[in-house]
C-alpha cells in the first residue's frame, strides 16, 4: 500500500529533530522552576510509555495509519469522524510550530521583517521537500541531524570553555519538593514534546524495517530526551532560573553570553540554526501526518495534490491562531492540557483498549472453535 520507505536510521534522525523542534527554544517544564530539567527527564519515560501505545497499535496494523485502524476498530463512520478530527489537530500543531519560528525570529533576529515572510519561506520550503516525498524528508533529516549534533557539541564546548556554567544556579535540587516537578511532568513535559509524537502514528507504516521500529523509537526518544534535558540544564546553569523563565528564547540569550579570549563571541547563529532546523522538521512531520490523514480518509491517490493547498492553510492558520505572541504562548499552555492530551493520549488509548478487547475476544473465539473442532 505504501510505496515510499524510510530506514530506521532516518526514522531515528527524524524523531530526534522532531523532539528538539521548538523545545530548545520555548522550553518546557518551567513551572518546575530550577528543576525543569528533572521534569523533562521524567517526561522521557512518559514519552516512552506513549510510544508503546502507538507501537502496540502499529504492531496490530502495520500497514495502516491512525486513520486506517480507527476506521477498522470503530467502524467506517465513527472511526472516520474521529479521524476527521485529527486533520485540524495536526494542521493546528503544524501552524503552532510555524508561528513559533515566525514569532521568535521576528522578536530576536530579524526585527523588521514581517513574520509572515519568515513563516512563508519556511512552509514553502517544507512543502517543496514534502512534494518530493517522505523519503526526501527522511534523508534530509539524516543530514541535518548530523549538523544539529555538531552544533550542539560546539555549543557545549564553548559553554564549558567560557566558564559561564555555574552549577550553583540549579541548586538546591528539588527546592520545593517533588510536587511541582511531578505537576510540570504531567501538565507540560509529557505532552510537550513527547505527546506530540502522535504524528508518528501516521508515519510508522513508512518504515521499512518493521522489527527495528520499537528499538529505534525508544532509543530516539531517549537520545533526544537526554539532549533536551541537557540543554535545559545548561540554560539554567548559565542564565539562572529567573532569566530563563522570562526569556522568549533562552538558548539564544545563553549563547550570546559566550566570550572566549575576546575572539569567540557573538555565536547567535548556533542558536538560530538549531531553532530553524528543529522547527523545520517538526512542522514537516505534523504537516505530512495531516496529508497522510487526509489522503487516507478521503482516499486520495496522489498525495502531492494536497501539499500546496495544505501549506496555504497552515500558513494562514499560523497567522490567525493568535493576535500576538504572548497570546500564542498562552494558548499553547492551554492546548497542552486540553487538545493535546485528547489526541495524543485519549484516542490512542481508546483504540488500544478496543483492539486489546477485540484481540482477546477473537482469541477466545478462536480457542473455542479450536476446542470444538478437536472434539
Amino acid at each position, binding site marked *: 500500500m505504501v510505496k515510499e520507505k524510510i530506514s530506521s536510521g532516518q526514522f531515528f534522525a527524524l524523531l530526534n529533530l522532531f523532539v528538539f523542534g521548538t523545545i530548545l527554544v520555548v522550553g518546557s517544564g518551567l513551572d518546575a522552576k530550577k528543576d525543569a530539567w528533572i521534569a523533562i527527564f521524567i517526561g522521557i519515560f512518559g514519552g516512552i510509555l506513549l510510544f508503546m501505545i502507538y507501537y502496540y497499535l502499529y504492531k496490530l496494523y502495520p500497514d495502516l495509519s491512525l486513520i486506517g485502524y480507527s476506521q477498522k476498530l470503530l467502524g467506517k463512520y465513527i472511526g472516520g469522524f474521529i479521524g476527521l478530527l485529527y486533520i485540524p489537530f495536526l494542521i493546528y500543531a503544524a501552524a503552532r510550530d510555524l508561528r513559533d519560528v515566525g514569532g521568535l525570529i521576528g522578536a530576536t533576529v530579524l526585527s523588521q521583517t514581517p513574520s509572515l515572510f519568515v513563516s*512563508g519561506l519556511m512552509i514553502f520550503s517544507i512543502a517543496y521537500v514534502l512534494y518530493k516525498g517522505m523519503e526526501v524528508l527522511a534523508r534530509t533529516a539524516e543530514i541535518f541531524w548530523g549538523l544539529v549534533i555538531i552544533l550542539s557539541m560546539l555549543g557545549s564546548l564553548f559553554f564549558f570553555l567560557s566558564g559561564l556554567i555555574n552549577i550553583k544556579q540549579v541548586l538546591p535540587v528539588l527546592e520545593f519538593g517533588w510536587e511541582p516537578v511531578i505537576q510540570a511532568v504531567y501538565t507540560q513535559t509529557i505532552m510537550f514534546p513527547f505527546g506530540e509524537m502522535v504524528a508518528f502514528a501516521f508515519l510508522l507504516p513508512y518504515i521499512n524495517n518493521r522489527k527495528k521500529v520499537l528499538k529505534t523509537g525508544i532509543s530516539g526518544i531517549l537520545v533526544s530526551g537526554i539532549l533536551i534535558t541537557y540543554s535545559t540544564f545548561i540554560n539554567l546553569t548559565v542564565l539562572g532560573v529567573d532569566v530563563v523563565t522570562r526569556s522568549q528564547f533562552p538558548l539564544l540569550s545563553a549563547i550570546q*553570553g559566550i566570550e572566549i579570549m575576546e575572539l569567540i563571541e557573538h555565536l547567535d547563529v548556533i542558536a538560530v540554526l538549531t531553532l530553524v532546523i528543529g522547527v523545520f522538521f517538526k512542522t514537516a512531520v505534523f504537516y505530512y501526518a495531516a496529508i497522510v490523514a487526509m489522503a487516507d480518509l478521503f482516499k486520495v491517490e496522489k498525495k502531492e495534490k494536497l501539499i500546496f493547498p495544505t501549506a496555504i492553510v497552515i500558513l494562514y492558520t499560523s497567522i490567525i491562531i493568535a493576535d500576538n505572541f504572548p497570546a500564542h504562548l498562552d494558548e499553547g499552555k492551554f492546548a497542552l492540557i486540553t487538545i493535546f492530551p485528547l489526541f495524543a493520549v485519549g484516542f490512542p488509548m481508546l483504540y488500544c483498549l478496543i483492539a486489546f478487547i477485540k484481540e482477546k475476544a477473537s482469541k477466545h473465539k478462536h480457542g473455542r472453535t479450536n476446542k470444538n473442532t478437536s472434539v
Partner: protein
Amino acid sequence: MAKRLLVVFLMLAVVCALLTGCWDRKEMDDFSIVAALGIDKVEDEGRYEVTIELINPPEVVGGKEAASGRSSTTTIYSAKGDTLVSAIRRISQQTPRETFFPYTQVIIIGEELARSGIEDIFDLLERNQEFRSTPRVLIAKDNTAKNTLSILSPLEKIPAEKLLKTSKVSGESLGETISVKVLEFGRKFTSEGIEPLASGVSIIGQSEDGQSQSNIEQTTPNSLIKSEGVALFKKGKLVRWVDREEARGILYVINKIDRAIVTLDCNQKTKALSISVTDTRTTFRAFKTERTPAIDIHVKQEAEVEEVLCEMDVADRHSILDIEKQLEEKTKQEIEKAIEIAKEENSDVFGFGEAINRERPKAWRDIKKNYEEIFPELEVNIQVDAYVIKTGMRKETYRRE
C-alpha cells in the same frame, strides 16, 4: 509543459519575494557602532539622560581618510527622555546614522542614578534584541556617566575600551575592582539572598581639556580615568563605596581575586614586605546551628614575595612560615572588615543567603522572610590557609651595612 513553466515561474516569483530579506538589511555606512552607553538621572525633561559613545571608524582604523589624525576617534551624544528608549531615539536628532548596539562594551551608570535606584534600567537591556548580556557594568564614582565617557585617553583609541581594560587589568593585578557583566548584575539583582556589586570609575583632574584631543597629546594628561572602588547595592540602590582593602575583602569572599598585592610587616618595620597573592580560592558553606544557619568561609591562597624593604631573610623557612601566618591573619582581618561593612549596610553581596538556600533549603524557608534582620547577625567563621611558594630571583635581600 506550459503548466510546468508556470509553476516554475510562480515558485521563482515567491522565492524572489521571500529571499531578499530587505527589511533587516543594514549597510555599514548607515549605522554607527556604539561602544559605551551611559545612563544618568536628570530632573528636567524626563527621567534619564542617555549618553552614547559612537566610534568613528576611519579614525580608529587609520588609513587615508584619517591622515590628519586630528579628529577624535569617538563622538559622544546624549539626550534626555522618560524612558531609556525614548532618550536613545532622541539621539537620532543629532546623529546622521542609526545607532547599533550589539557591540556595546560598557554600561556606565552615574552615581546619582545609582544612589536613587537602578531597578528599572535592566528591562531594556534584557528585552531589546540588540543588547547582549556581556557588556560590563561600571559606576561613575562622584560623577555622571556623561562626564566619564567624555574623557579621551591615551593608549587606547576608544574611551570605552580604555574603561573596560583599566577595570579589567586593575582587577587582575591589584584585586580591588571587579568586572561584572550585565547578565550577572541583573541576576543578582533579581535573586533572593544576594545583592549585586559593581566597580567604580572616577575622573582624576576633571577639566574641560579632558574632552579634547589635546588631552592625550600631552605626556601628563590633564584628565585621566581611574578604576577605583566597589559599589555595594541594596535593593537596586547604591548604598556604599568600599575601596582598597575593604574592597579586596569583599572580593576575597566572592572568589573574584586573581592577584593582589598585600603589604605586611617585617620584624620591627611595619609595611615593609610586599607579597603578591597569585591565586586565591574561596569556598563557603552554610551549616546549621541551633538558631539560624551560619557560614563557614575557607580561603586558600598562594603567594610570592615581591619586595623586601628590611633585613628579613626570606631564604629561611621560618620566616616564610611567619609571612604565611601574617598573610593569613591579614586576609582574615580584611574579610572580617568587609563582612562588617556589608552587615552595616545590610547588603548581602556575598550571597550567603543563596548559600543557605542551596545547602539548607529548609532553614532558608524559615528565615527567608526576615533575612534582613538575620543577615546582620549572621555567624561567619573564616579560615585562611596561605602558602608562600616563591621568593623571586634572589634569596635573601642585600645587606645595607
